[in-house]
């Protein structure tokens, strides 16, 4: 895996007006890699994903996919959002088909792919249901199926399980890994939960608070399925936690202090 080519190369800085959000974020994602990005709340993780998706141009720098600037019309990118994003007027089947329809897949191919992914995520019995008839966890599963149904060059996931209860969350994490192992897409998964990051990722990038910088880039050399209670898991998790905690004064700083810190 470490020899796989770089699929995505990122080198961006971003600001909202005078507020610096990303301060020279530079990293790459290998083909088929499951990269987790972890950082404190409000460090611009969602903004970073919008930039990676090519729907928000960064103030400086660029995002390259296969050595070309990202373009949602040409590249196949999927996004699993934090909030419910299924279309309430479409049933489960048609929701899963949405990405493929936008990409103009032919009917036969489209049906085959949708049915295949629906089997993988166990939604087969619910293809006729509308989103209001199913639970929040299932809606998120539909959104995940929609993302994995395409030949995505890149799948972006923005804290997709943050609103789910713990057991559902754990099961969905396992499901995403299973789906990913079957399809081997390149995934960038954003979370503020270290345990989740270490559980899922081939690699974990830790961001500082705003203005976000990369403070750690840790390879997780553990085979899956991973046991969160194993010594190695605990060690990696602790290492990430220590790095995040060392940044804490910045997080806790009051706005004027932070301004001074920025000025320095």
């Amino acid at each position, binding site marked *: 895996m470490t020899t796989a080519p770089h699929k995505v190369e990122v080198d961006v800085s971003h600001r909202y007006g005078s507020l610096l959000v990303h301060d020279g974020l530079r990293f790459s994602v290998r083909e088929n890699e499951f990269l987790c990005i972890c950082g404190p709340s409000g460090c611009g993780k969602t903004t970073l994903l919008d930039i990676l998706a090519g729907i928000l141009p960064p103030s400086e720098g660029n995002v390259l996919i296969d050595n070309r600037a990202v373009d949602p019309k040409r590249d196949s990118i999927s996004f699993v959002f934090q909030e419910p994003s299924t279309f*309430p007027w479409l049933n489960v089947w048609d929701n899963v088909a949405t990405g493929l329809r936008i990409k103009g897949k032919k009917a036969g191919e489209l049906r085959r792919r949708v049915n295949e992914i629906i089997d993988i995520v166990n939604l*087969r019995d619910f293809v006729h*249901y509308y989103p209001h008839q199913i639970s929040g966890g299932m809606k998120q599963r539909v959104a995940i199926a929609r993302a994995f149904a395409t030949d995505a060059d890149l799948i972006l996931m923005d804290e997709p399980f943050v609103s789910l209860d713990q057991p559902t969350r754990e099961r969905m994490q396992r499901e995403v890994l299973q789906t990913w192992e079957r399809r081997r897409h390149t995934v960038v998964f954003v979370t503020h939960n270290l345990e989740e990051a270490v559980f899922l990722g081939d690699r974990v990038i830790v961001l500082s608070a705003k203005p976000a910088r990369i403070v750690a880039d840790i390879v997780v050399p553990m085979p899956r399925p991973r046991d969160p209670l194993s010594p190695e898991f605990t060690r990696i998790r602790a290492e990430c936690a220590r790095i995040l905690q060392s940044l804490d004064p910045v997080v806790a700083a009051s706005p004027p202090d932070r301004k001074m810190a920025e000025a320095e």
Partner: protein
Amino acid sequence: MASNEAELGPVQDPGGEQRVQAAGFVAPLSPGAAAWQARMTGALVGLGWNTFTLIIVLAGWQILTILINSRFFPGPVAIFWAFVDLAVNGDTGGRTLWDHAWASVQRVLVGFGLAVVAGVPIGLLMGLYPRVYANSRVVLEPFRFIPPIAWIPLAIIFFSGMTRFAFLIFLGAFFPVFTAALVGVSRVEPIHRKVGLVHGASKGWILAHVVIPTVLPDILGGMRVGLGAAWLTIVAAELAGGISLGLGRMMSNYAELVQVPQVIVGMVLIGILGLIMNEVLLLVEKRLFRWRWRVTL
């Protein structure tokens, strides 16, 4: 609901494959036979109660007319016979009730149709480009407050026949439809637009597959309000005269002759026609918006 079951893991379903295949593009809601039966039973019970209420009210009314015994206060029986007479023999000029009703319905459909055809695209356009609306509302908004009835004198001078009525009804029905589309656009969830954008969808795709499905329930609601306004306008316009056909005209004629039952026949028929059109729109809503929790009433 069934969702809890789903959370517990894969559900064994040997027939699933076929159903998935059958789902194709137009996956129906496919309520079970039992659910359908339950719905039909519910509908019949509702119909029964409505019939009961209607009979009680009519009977009370009839009793009241017997007690009062005035030719200015006819009961349902007298109105029924007036109805039959008008429907079969026609009015003093020989025109039947149906001639009048059809004339009115035609006018409503033409004017209302024009209002929908104009109101929906203009409302969507202004909703999607709020600056167009913000910079032109000084021209647009005052018109909303000029009641269509206030246009009748001008309309009588400028137009005649169908054009006049279509124009007046258009004025009455346009704003409810336009406003519904305009306001509906603000209900589009940014996240739904983003789903389209990340997959590289064009503006046209987002309009057709995100904006319109979101706004459609509002538009249908606006159409039902507009339909009410259309009937209000048509009757007022017909009462104003200058024509010989139309339910409003017929009522006005009989009022001059102090023939109360015939006037009430006109009123009742307008109520029934409005109800039918409203029910048709509701039916469309129910079919289109099965995905919603419930239909707005």
